[in-house]
């Protein structure tokens, strides 16, 4: 196999700019393409959230300059309700799929998997390239929906029928929803191609000595996320096709006989809850597809910068697998009050709350990794620690929502908005930022500016808490989500009409602007940053043994050979505080097994 790969490397060295950087089949370049596209999409979705915040922070105020930008949606300088829910929908869709998933799964799988397992590239480089271009097409289709009659889809990122299946139900349920569904279908095709590649590559292309038990936790997390994606995304694909059939060919999968806008819609027997089951069968695993890679990045960055072995490596892998497995049997917790049989609620409650156990294990293992460390505060490290903080804040509120009696009150309120923005919005974004700052030198051969990075971190960290933490209290007070305004209800107007929403809006716009620091740093550093050597963080994993950036084929003539696990940091008696995976046992005197004896419990108490 090794020979074959060397051979591949020799013939496929790209020569022209186009084959090297645009239609590239090199996983590193594809990863960067994914990452940059995802950042652009994320930035766009953030601007959409600004518009939402303008409406919620200053309801009824006229913004003539916005009318000039969007004469239809902002007629008279005031946002139309249908535009507000279109913003909610597209913001959510982009952030979940086109930013978080694309960056973490598409971006970091490509950047990290081949390099960290000692492969020359992905197993199927052409399919890999195709995966990116299909993803880009899905982005374009989605954005195109802003320019069609009726505007973008407005059924929420969950796209529940019949609101989404009958065009009379909502302006955005015409062309906008068709494009949304097509975009999702393309996106799923893209992730499926990606997932097949990542799984095959991890299973087959590990270099000599790189056993599954020596894989960095990033690779474990990306590997399990790919498996989850491969098994769950096709279910949404099926759902999307069925919804398209309901919309355009008059089938009744999800659409019963209803009357919308005085018009009888002649369908028979459709079952709206079926869509919810199909959607959440993907939708819930999806949050783990996003969060597992962020957890992997956090583990890697924390271990490297605490200069300590990751605590409980085996338990970390076990919890990744446990989360991966459980993620398939918890989807019903989104449907406690949907009208589904309440006995199912009991079952889904049990599985949902159990998933907190592996999450708790991971959290405490990160804390134990920090304990006794020699912590180096790089920007990546700050984002990784920030991940732990936001993951805990957001994860704990899952215990309210996973418990059906409590969920009755909190379901579809701002408490839910706070919960998922902390745990899968902010935490996953922190994972992306940690990964970007950490592996930027490997991607571009240059360092990012640490001062700007830290400024970016602290402004973002303060900002996200000021934006999302108060939303828990809006939820306590019963304020429903996806409301264009709160003035129609006395109780909501009293609770939400005050200064909380104004504060959130001001901070949201400020923290959004702070992301420009990151954009600036990224672009400037890619061209003008200080040159990086091959291992600037003194890390153990294989990618740091390759030049920065690695050449096509990654490793020169010979593949690296792995002798140890990736977390030999601060091994007693070793000369340096890190021992790369490629260091043979003699060179370092101490191996992982030997370092364990006796010392472990003694050091624990410090």
């Amino acid at each position: 196999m090794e020979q074959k790969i060397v051979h591949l490397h020799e013939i496929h060295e790209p020569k022209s700019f186009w084959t090297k950087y645009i239609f590239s089949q090199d996983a590193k370049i594809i990863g960067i393409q994914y990452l940059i596209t995802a950042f652009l999409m994320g930035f766009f979705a953030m601007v959409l959230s600004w518009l939402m915040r303008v409406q919620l922070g200053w309801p009824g105020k006229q913004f003539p300059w916005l009318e000039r930008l969007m004469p239809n949606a902002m007629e008279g300088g005031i946002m139309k309700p249908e535009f507000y829910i279109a913003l909610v929908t597209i913001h959510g869709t982009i952030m979940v799929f086109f930013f978080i998933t694309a960056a973490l799964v598409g971006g970091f799988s490509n950047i990290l998997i081949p390099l960290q397992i000692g492969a020359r590239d992905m197993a199927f480089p052409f399919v890999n390239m195709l995966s990116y271009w299909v993803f880009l097409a899905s982005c374009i289709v989605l954005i195109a929906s802003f320019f069609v009659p009726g505007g973008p889809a407005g059924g929420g990122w969950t796209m529940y029928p019949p609101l989404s299946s009958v065009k009379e139900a909502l302006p955005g349920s015409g062309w906008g929803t068709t494009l949304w569904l097509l975009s999702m279908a393309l996106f799923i095709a893209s992730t499926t191609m990606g997932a097949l590649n990542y799984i095959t590559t991890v299973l087959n292309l590990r270099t000599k000595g790189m056993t599954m038990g020596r894989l960095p936790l990033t690779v474990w997390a990306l590997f399990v996320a790919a498996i989850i994606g491969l098994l769950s995304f096709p279910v949404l694909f099926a759902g999307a096709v069925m919804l398209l059939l309901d919309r355009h060919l008059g089938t009744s999968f999800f659409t019963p006989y209803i009357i919308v806008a005085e018009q009888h819609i002649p369908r028979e027997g459709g079952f709206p809850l079926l869509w919810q089951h199909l959607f959440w069968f993907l939708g819930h695993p999806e949050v783990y597809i996003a969060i597992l890679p962020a957890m992997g990045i956090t583990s890697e960055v924390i271990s490297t910068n605490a200069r300590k072995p990751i605590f409980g490596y085996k338990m970390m892998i076990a919890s990744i697998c446990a989360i991966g497995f459980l993620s398939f049997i918890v989807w019903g917790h989104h449907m406690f009050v949907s009208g589904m049989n309440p006995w199912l609620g009991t079952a889904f409650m049990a599985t949902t709350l159990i998933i907190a156990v592996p999450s708790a294990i991971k959290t405490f293992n990160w804390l134990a990794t920090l304990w006794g460390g020699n912590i180096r505060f790089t920007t990546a490290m700050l984002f990784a620690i920030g991940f732990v903080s936001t993951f805990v804040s957001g994860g704990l509120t899952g215990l309210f929502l996973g418990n059906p009696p409590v969920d009755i009150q909190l379901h579809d309120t701002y408490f839910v908005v706070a919960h998922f923005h902390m745990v899968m919005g902010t935490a996953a974004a922190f994972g992306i930022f940690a990964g970007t700052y950490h592996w930027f030198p490997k991607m571009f051969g240059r360092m990012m500016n640490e001062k700007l990075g830290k400024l970016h971190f602290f402004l973002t960290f303060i900002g996200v808490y000021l934006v999302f933490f108060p939303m828990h209290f809006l939820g306590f007070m019963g304020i429903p989500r996806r409301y264009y305004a709160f003035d129609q209800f006395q109780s909501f107007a009293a609770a939400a009409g005050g200064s909380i929403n104004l504060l959130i809006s001001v901070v949201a716009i400020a923290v959004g602007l702070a992301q420009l620091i990151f954009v600036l740093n990224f672009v400037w550093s890619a061209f003008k940053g200080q040159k990086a050597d091959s291992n600037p963080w003194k890390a153990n994993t294989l990618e740091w043994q390759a030049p920065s950036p690695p050449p096509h084929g990654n490793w020169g003539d010979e593949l690296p050979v792995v002798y140890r696990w990736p977390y030999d940091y601060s091994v007693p008696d070793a000369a340096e505080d890190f021992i790369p995976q490629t260091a043979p046992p003699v060179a370092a005197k101490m191996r992982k097994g030997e370092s364990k004896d006796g010392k472990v419990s003694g050091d624990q108490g410090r």
Partner: protein
Amino acid sequence: MTKRKLGRIDAVLFALLIVALVVTAVVTVGGRFWWLPPLASEHGKAIDTLFIVTLAITGTVFVLVQLLLAFSVIRFAGGEKRRAVHFTDNRTLELIWTIVPAVILTVLIASGGRLWSRIQIAKPPEDAFKVEIWGEQFRWTFRYPGKDGQFGRTDLKLVSVENPLGIDKNDPAAKDDIFFFAGEENLHIPINKPVVVYLRSKDVLHSFYVPQLRVKQDVVPGMVTKTWFVVTKKGEYEIACAELCGLGHYSMRGVMVVEDENDLQNWLKDQLTVADVLP
């Protein structure tokens, strides 16, 4: 400034922010400045208790873990001459933080499950007051079963301007039903008596949500969902829609009037029935 000092500043700043977060959270939650809407239902008491128990558990974990994170960051901030302690795992510790969360969660699952079966799985009492609540973009309307206590058959195909709910007037059970046009009348229900609401939609999904009652149940076209409760305080309550139902979702407001059963029966007596309205 040396790198090391800069590292310390980062650590201290991060830790201070965490402490500020924890203090703010504790003060805000403890002071109940923003709290659940005042309770007005019987089953809601147990929900609120479980909410507070969950809040106490998660709050404790939140405070401990965040402070531990802040402490570790300051205590173990790096220096040129320091070296990290080396340990890779510890079975006792890992067992502790597997088993303790597992036990706490089992308790939560048990209490949540018990409460859930009491309020959602258990059948409402036979003599409960019945009312049908219909959602349509973006209004609520209501139907009462009349003296026979039975709702007549409906079919959306029969819906017309005079017959907004598509009631089959030939069904004997329908004759004494009382129905209203959307937005015509408030929902009237009795105090201190079990009320079963049957939820139906004419168009898209809605969700029947009365914050003070701790009641939320989706309304699904093509099927009838139901929930039941006992209201303990007289007065008027706003009914909100909690499932995105279109551009007017935010304005789908109804009013629920809770009154003595006698007043309610008198009010019902004055209403026209299907037999009166749809001859």
